[in-house]
Each structure stands twice: as C-alpha cells, then as structure tokens.
C-alpha cells in the first residue's frame, strides 16, 4: 500500500508582494515514510509545514493531506499531529491540563498515552509546563501530538533548541512511537545529522525551492561522485542527467552527478575516472551548495555553513 500521505502541487507562498517563502513546490510523501525536511534557516521549511497543517494559506498551487485540504477540512486536522517550532504550549498549564485540553478539542484522543509517556520519562504532570526544561517541554508537546493518534506527524525543528542528550532522547521517543503505529512523519531540521539515521525519505529545500525529494535509498542509488582528470566546463557525460555540483582543481575534477532515468549510474566519462558511492550528508551538502544559480555564491556558502556548523 503506497497511499500518499502528503502531496503538494505547484505550491507557493508569498509574503508581501515579492518575497516568496516557498515556490513551485511539488512533492509527494508516501504513507509510512519518515521524512527529513532539510535546508538552511529561511529556506521555507516552516512555511511548507505550516501550509501542510493548514496554518498558512497558499497563494499558488495546492496541498493535500490524505487527499484533504487541511485549511478547510476538519477531517484533515484530525489526521495530523503537529509540533511547532519552539514547542509552544500554554506555559501556565500543567501537562495534565494540556491533556484535558486535547481531550476536549479532539474526537480521537489517547489520554492514556500521554500519561504513560510522561510517567516513563518522569515528567511531572502537575507542574506548569513553563517550568519544565526545554527537553521535557518538547516531550510533552510530542506526547500531545501523538495522543491525537495522527496518520501523519509533522514536526518543525523540534530538537533545535535542545541539548545533545535531550535531542537523542527525543528522537528515540519519536522513533519508538511511530515505529509502533506506522505513522508517517515529516520532520524538519537544519541539521542533517540528527535525522540521518532515522529517515528513509529526504526533502531538501533551499531558497524557497525544493532541490531534491525522494526515498533515501533511491536517491543514494541515483547519485555518484565521479573523480577524474580535469574536465572542460560544460562537458556532457553520457548516462548523466545532471551534474549537481562540480569542483575542479588544476588537474582533477570532482563531480556530483545524478544518473539519467534508466541509466546505469556508474557510467564513466572516460579513461582515468572512478565512481564513488555517496553519503547522505554529501548528497544534501551537494544540493545545498549546488551551482543552480552561479550568480549567487553567497547563498551557497550560507547553505553549506548552516549545515556543517555542528
């Protein structure tokens, strides 16, 4: 069964008259995937997530969650769980009170799940969540999102503000929970390393546009690093759909290439060339630093720095 959990077509969101936060976004996320939404700050990750949960309205295109418009269809709201950036909760409410809010605002609500998770993590349910640590608050937000028994769970940089230990705990809880239920997950981060092990689907955003989207194993299969003698600019290589990124020294060229559909990815341009498999991190970095618009070296550097900072 490969039903589509999230589907966008030509999706665009503009702030003001000409600032596009997201443009031409067409992607499809099959059910059951754990998807990483990666890109530097300001790339449009939050915009995409907010469009998907109905917090934002698009100017162009459409977004569907299990075939429904999240802005107008209440059934779509019931199907999705959302943990927003900085995990905003009513800070003077206790976790038990937030559980009660959830129970009253949702037809489907698993309060036992919230209580069990909090007990497991030793988070006091009777203390205002504003007085919990950031990691604990994120866990409360996650438990509340899971209690909706959502079919798709969207998380906007849930671990960005957490310390490394809390990060790992959070990811463990998340993966454990969705492993049991088969929930589709879309998780954004500007740090790939947090998501690398957990995700089987990748969406790379940069400068309001989708650079790459697909299953991780297929993407890795399609891409290779080719290393060989210095190539002149603009050389076409048979079997290669696109040279994503090229770097040259005086004597050597290193190319990140995407194979043409149906072609054997290891086709080499000539004598002295070798092909290397590529890691997920290199793939993402390659696309973020891609020479999509050569007139914009600053933007490239930004993307790269953002991603490797940690």
């Amino acid at each position, binding site marked *: 069964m490969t039903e589509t959990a999230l589907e966008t077509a030509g999706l665009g969101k503009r702030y003001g008259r000409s600032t596009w936060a997201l443009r031409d976004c067409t992607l499809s996320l099959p059910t059951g995937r754990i998807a990483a939404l990666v890109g530097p700050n300001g790339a449009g990750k939050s915009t995409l997530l907010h469009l998907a949960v109905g917090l934002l309205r698009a100017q162009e295109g459409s977004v569907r969650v299990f075939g429904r418009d999240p802005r107008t269809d209440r059934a779509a709201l019931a199907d999705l769980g959302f943990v927003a950036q900085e995990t905003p909760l009513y800070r003077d409410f206790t976790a038990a009170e937030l559980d009660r*809010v959830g129970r009253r605002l949702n037809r489907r609500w698993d309060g036992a799940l919230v209580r069990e998770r909090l007990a497991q993590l030793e988070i006091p349910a009777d203390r205002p969540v504003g007085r919990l640590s950031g990691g604990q608050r994120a866990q409360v937000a996650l438990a509340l999102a899971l209690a909706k028994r959502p079919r798709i769970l969207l998380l906007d940089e849930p671990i960005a503000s957490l310390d490394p230990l809390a990060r790992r705990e959070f990811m463990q809880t998340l993966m454990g929970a969705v492993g049991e239920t088969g929930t589709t997950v879309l998780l954004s981060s500007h740090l790939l390393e947090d998501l690398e092990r957990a995700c089987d689907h990748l969406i790379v955003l940069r400068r309001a546009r989708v650079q790459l989207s697909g299953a991780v194993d297929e993407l890795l299969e399609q891409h290779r690093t080719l290393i060989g003698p210095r190539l002149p600019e603009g050389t076409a290589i048979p079997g290669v759909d696109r040279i994503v990124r090229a770097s040259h020294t005086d004597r050597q060229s290193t190319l990140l290439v995407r194979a043409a559909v149906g072609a054997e990815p290891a086709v080499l341009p000539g004598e002295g060339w070798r092909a290397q498999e590529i890691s997920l991190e290199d793939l993402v970095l390659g696309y973020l630093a891609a020479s999509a618009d050569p007139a914009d070296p600053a933007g490239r550097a930004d993307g790269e720095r953002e991603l490797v900072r940690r």
Partner: protein
Amino acid sequence: MIWLTWRQHRTQFLYTLLVIAAVAAVMLPTGLAMRHTFEDSGLAACIEKLGTAAVVPPGDCDVLSQQFADKYNALTFVGVLFVILPVFVGIFFGAPLVAREVEQGTHRFVWTQGITRRRWAASKFGLVGLAAAVIAVLYALGVSWWFGPLVTNGGGRLAYVSFDVQGVVPIAYTIFAVALGICLGTVFRKVLPAMGVTLAAFLAVRVAVEWGARKHYLSPETVTLPITSTDQFNRYGGAWTYQTGVRNAAGQVVIPDGMVQCAFGTGKAAGTRGSGSGVPLGSSPCSSLGKGAVDFQVLQPGSRFWDFQAIESGIFVGLAVLLVWLALSRVRRLT
C-alpha cells in the same frame, strides 16, 4: 472549549470579581447612606411632587437639594471613575484573546487540534463576550442604583457622565470594548500594543459619539415660560438642557444664555442670570424686554432617557458586531 476558555481566563475573571467586590464594599455603605438621606430629608418626596413637567410652580426643593449636594456631591467624582471601567474589560479580556496566542505561538498548538479555528474563535469570542456582558450587567445595575439620588438631584439621567454609567449603555460599551480589543489583537498580534491601541481607540470613539453624535439622536423640544411668571423650569425633571435663553415678543433671541424673571408691578427684575450678548439691553432688562418676552429652554425631556439609551446602545452594539466580524475574518487569515 468552555473548559479551555475558563482555564485560560479564570485568573483575570477572579481578579475582576475581586475588583467588583472591592467596589461594592465602598458603594454599598455610601449608597445606602445616600439613599437614606435622600428619603429622610424629604428631598425625594419633594422632587417626586414636582414630577417630570418642564415648568413647575416655585417650590422649596432647592434648599434640601443644596444640603444634599453639599453632603454628597464629592461622590460624583467616583461616578466619573465608573465611566472608564468598561474599557478595562476590553483591555484585559479582549486585547489578549488572539494577540497572546499569536505572541506566544500557542495558536499553532490550538489551531492544529481537532477543531477548526473558526469554531475556536466563535467559542472564545462568544464565551468571553458573554462573561464580559454578565460583568457589565452587574456593574450597570449596581451603578444605576448607587448613582440614582445624585443624578436625580443633579443634572438628571441624560446628563453627561450620568447617562454613561446607567441603564443599558454600560453593557453596550463593555461589549464594544471587548470586541475592539479582540479585533485590534488580531491586527497588532502583540498584547501590549493591542492593549494600548484599544484604550486609545475606545476613548476616541466614546468621545466622538458623546460630544459629536448624541445631541442629534432626536430633535430637541423648546419649552417657554413668560418672564412675568413666578413658575420655574423644572430642575429635577431629568431633562437634558441644551440652551436656556430669553426671546422678546417678536421671537428674537435677546439673551442666548440666561434667563430673567420680571415683576412688572414693581418695575424691577426679580432675578436675572447669564450674560446678555444678544440685543443690547438697558440697565433694566425687564423694561426693555416688554411683557411679551419669554424665557425658553431647548431640551431633551427626561422621558426620552430610554430612547437615548436604546440609540446609543444600538450604535455600540452595531460597532461591536462589525468588529467581531472583522476579527473573525482576520483570524481566518492569521498565520
């Protein structure tokens, strides 16, 4: 939603009840004492006897009235404080309603639960509006009761300030203030600016309606009294007097703001008030006016109190409806 709304606003609500209790603790004894004096001194009966006629025979209510005023008029200033109370409900209940959610980001939590934000907004606006209305009813009843004797003895129920704290208009002001706060909260999306602008906008609208529009709700009546009469205009009939002046026999206004009473048998003015800035008069106004002259008052009779209340309430409730509609459509577009 009911529980969530209660949980989010219960602190404010309890503080409001505390304030009401504190105000009541002051109002109850002073109100009782005031009513006691009003009845026992005979002032109430005296004013009762005059009725609501515009022109009444000379009476002796003035002495009692002065005594009462000497004792209690200082409290009129407390009444002025009541005028501004509704705006606080707007500031503390209305302005943060949407603004605090957006400022703290919690709208992203609550709008992604299983109810649409339209339903969220309708429930919250409705419940907070209802609570504000209940508070306003308490306030209106209490202040109307407390203020009654002072108002009857003073400028009447239609006078500025008295009109604003009695009857149903305080309820309309409160609902308007809450709607204004909510709506500005959706515009400014931060609690403090929303509160500040709510205060300013509320005052601006209130002042504009009070001094600009209210006079024109209904066309005033003119009451006349021959200058030779020993009768008086009724000070206690609850009328809202726009102008008191003197017209000569030809109908020209000779004194635009004042009145005269002449006893022509003696050839002396029994009493004049005001400044003569109309047709020049001699040192003795009575002789130059002649017998056909009349004192006149342009006024809204006290019996129109509820008509005025209904019109003013209609304006503010109408504005509130408009603001709520605006707020709902803005909530739909908020991010």
